[in-house]
């Protein structure tokens, strides 16, 4: 290992990518919400307004975990709270 900083930064980027993977499941959940809302509107077209409002609430609720993953990825990439301990550990190991 030549440069501890490069190693830590590369690992941080991989960790951000892993944190963003929960977007897959979030998107599946949001798709389910939208599909059910469309089914309800097709069954009862006169209830379109309330169904749309409740669909947006459900979409926002389902989005929460995806947003948490995104915020964690942003923290890992740009704020880097743990970079100093890792660097100290790696330089001590070398």
């Amino acid at each position, binding site marked *: 290992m030549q440069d501890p900083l490069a190693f830590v930064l590369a690992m941080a980027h991989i960790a951000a990518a892993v944190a963003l993977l929960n977007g897959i499941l979030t998107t599946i959940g949001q798709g389910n919400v939208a599909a059910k809302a469309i089914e309800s509107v097709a069954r009862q077209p006169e209830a379109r*307004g*309330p169904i749309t*409002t409740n669909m*947006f*609430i459900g*979409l*926002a609720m389902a*989005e*929460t975990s995806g*947003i*948490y993953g*995104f*915020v964690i990825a*942003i923290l890992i990439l*740009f704020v880097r709270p743990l970079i100093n301990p890792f660097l100290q550990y790696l330089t001590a190991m070398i």
Partner: protein
Amino acid sequence: MFDVPIHGVVSIGPVDLWITNTIVVTWVIMAVLITFAIIVRIKLKKFTDKPTGFQNVVEMAIEAFDGLMKSNGHKNISWLGGWFFTLFTFLLFANIMGIFPGMRPPTADWPLPFALALTSFFLIQFSGIRYGGWKYFKGTYLSPHWAFFPINVLGEFSRPISLSFRLFGNILGGLILITLLYTLVPAVVSYVVPVALHLVFDLAFGVLQAFIFTILSLTFVSLAAADN
């Protein structure tokens, strides 16, 4: 690249107040909204039974929000309609601020969404205690048994955090995507698709997120007020 620019530091005694871009943009939005409100107040005397032009626009906005308030809010909290309308208009202007050059949407800085979500949190507690009394407190915090009090407190406090992170994450995501595209492929983005990009990430998502923040706060407060 994604830091909030700081325009100056004001020292009041031992306290340093940082005048960040968020605060400046918030002042601009406040000036616009207050000016608009004063104009509406002056023109209010000339409003007639047959609305025309400017009066139509104002009445349309108020009636649309009134319908939303009636269909989603409990009748106990109808006196809070003004607060939610103000919240919605402020968030609307704050989220779409990215389309003006040199301005960063202030909701892409976490303290602003968190402050607004904290007001929602206190409104939830206030309306719950006011309309439900001891019953609300017992039903929310001591729900199955008094030993669950710490877990219930954590659950209540996670509400403003998730509410603020939802708004913050969406707006910051749009901002980062736009900034990355402008940096990586400037030729394509500057001349071919900037309109579409800003249309989707600033206007559409901004309006949607302002609506969702308002409607979720309204639903939480209304649930708390209807608890008895």
